[in-house]
């Protein structure tokens, strides 16, 4: 085969891949319609961008749940002051966002998504157990990054975990799951805790993870 033939073959493979991906791509026919709208001059081309500009959703992230204020003011005030700067009233929004983003990183780093989903599937028994299907808003919409829907449940779905348990419950569960569920097979994460004078308290990573868990599903129609 000459160079032209090789290029054609490669080109065909590439085009077929590209077409396949575009067609499959989350089935968003609305976006294809938008292409038509742009072509016909009804919509500005800039709206075809596939991402939101940074900062657009900052308002969502700054609407912190009550559990966050509990953590800062009552549950772990000294730990929060030690691990996060600016825990004043004016700076709490920034701290919440910082803790959320770090918490998501810890969730990814420890591979939580290998055993827990954040997705309730429509048309399945999921709905009976976990409630209505997860919408396009997703469970962790407050933090930027790829969705952590997961593909397997060794443990239960976490898509609507927010505000179901207290901060202390999460801390105890992360430290020693079997202290709450004797038959649990979830491992403990003692490295998310520091020793202090009167016992253990969550360290920076631990606090952040609890903040993240308390945010899951907050914006999912609740």
């Amino acid at each position, binding site marked *: *085969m000459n160079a032209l033939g090789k290029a054609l073959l490669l080109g065909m*493979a*590439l085009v077929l891949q590209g077409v*396949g991906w575009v067609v499959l791509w*989350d089935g968003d026919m609305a976006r294809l319609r938008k292409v038509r709208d742009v072509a016909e001059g009804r919509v500005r081309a800039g709206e075809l961008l596939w991402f939101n500009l940074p900062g657009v959703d900052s308002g969502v992230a700054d609407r912190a749940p009550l559990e966050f204020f509990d953590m800062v003011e009552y549950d772990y005030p000294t730990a929060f002051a030690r691990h996060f700067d600016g825990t004043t009233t004016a700076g709490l929004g920034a701290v919440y966002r910082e803790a959320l983003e770090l918490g998501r990183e810890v969730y*990814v780093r420890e*591979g939580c998504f290998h055993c827990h989903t954040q997705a309730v599937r429509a048309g399945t028994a999921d709905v009976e157990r976990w409630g209505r299907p997860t919408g396009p808003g997703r469970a962790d919409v407050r933090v930027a990054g*790829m969705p952590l829907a997961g593909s397997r449940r060794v443990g239960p779905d976490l898509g609507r975990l927010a505000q179901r348990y207290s901060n202390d419950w999460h801390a105890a569960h992360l430290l020693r799951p079997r202290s709450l569920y004797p038959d649990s097979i979830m491992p*403990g994460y003692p490295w998310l805790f520091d020793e202090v004078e009167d016992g253990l308290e969550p360290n920076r990573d631990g606090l952040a993870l609890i903040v993240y868990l308390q945010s899951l599903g907050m914006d999912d129609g609740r």
Partner: protein
Amino acid sequence: LDLLTTGWEPTPDFHDRRLAGVARGYFRAAGFWLVVGLFAGLTYSFQFIPGWGEALVPPSPVHSVGRLRMTHSTVMLHGFLISIFLGALHAVCSDTRARRGGAGTAWLGFGVLQVSLLAGVLGVLYGEVQASAFGELPMWADAGLVAGWAIAMGALIASPKREEDPWIGGVFPWLAVAAVAGLALQAGNAVLAFLPLPQDQAGGWAAVIQSGYLHAWMLPLGVAATLYFLRFRLPLPGWSRWWLGLLALVVAATASLTGGELYQVEWPPEALIEPIRVAGTVYFGALGALAAGLGLALRRGVAEKGDARPWNARAMIWFVAGWVAVLCYAFQRVHLLHDEAYLETVRFTDWIAGHHHLLLLSGMGAWAFGVTDELWPELRRCEAWRLPFFADVHVILTLGGAWIMVGTLFTAGWLQSTMAREMVPWSAITEASAGFWLVRVIAGSVVVGAQVLWLINLVATRDRSLPKLREPVELEAEEPEILEGFSEGMPR
């Protein structure tokens, strides 16, 4: 398209030693990563057995469940399977001298791949923040793997001497698909991590990439390596090249359409569901046809050339077992596309893990071992494995353990799904799963044990007459020369 139709001629029996060295390097790397990956997988699964976790694996962030799980899958995919397949491709190029140029680029690709993977695995174990898409590797490791992949594949397919080995034409489409898909998927993974996409859009892309890893990258690469290898060793009839090449294009198109469908949070629009199902059926049907057709082609090749290996040869057992696994995989994937009840059984259960082990361990893993079984003794200039008994036991234990593991995971998945639908408390589901996880760990231990035998054989199999340079060399005794000005006996 003469590339696909050129007749095959036996190639002269000589080796490009430099490329053979690269192939040996890949096989050794695969052996190393196999140990790391299996150890990580076993340590991970130990922690699902009540009471075993703390006893055998003290709590530590370095070997926590999540990080070991990521290490296992990453290492088995990038470290073991890809290393074997790239090693096989280099070995065949070495045999046929089908590649121009020196081994420098090949070694460079090898080095970049291995260093990136090692750094990436250490990064995962020590809690480096991973790529956002799947959390498997740090971003900088992904970048290194993309670079290494580009160099290695570029060196392999850029300048083949087709006049000396025209059969590379039959493999070229597969290699091209694998190379392009590998680059596109890794690059796409990196781009997605940085683009602040809305989550629902990102989900669709992530699903496509996740499935694309297996269907558009790993599978074509495995098929390329295996077919190229088989073609070289077991002469296939000329007609087989045509449909094998065309199948590559079918795979490229339909894997894209079907890939990731299952893992999407939302179904595609109603109008697209049926075309996607049809495309998926074509793809998996083609995969099944490939598995069955390869058998026919081999039979035809035996009849035409008369020099094929017997069906009960060890390598043939590996290859056939691998294709049977792929056939089973294709069969169940078609069910997934068309049967909602089946889909619900599979979702979020151990079935998913069984499904991955069916394709990657029982299917592509068997191909990888088959390739090694044929190639390694030759690369070490031996006629056969040094410990043939170990090689035989390796087949039995690996395939037996793998299929028990897959069967256990499928059964556990069915049980978990049934219990979940009946609203059984979650603790009861995990309690009921414990027995299956125990069997799985035992089956995994058997597989690990088999690999220990394989590794021993890998090290032991070498031509002991090779290091001739080490034999004592008799030199003529010379009278010690006394330099002027030095006294006799003074060290010189």
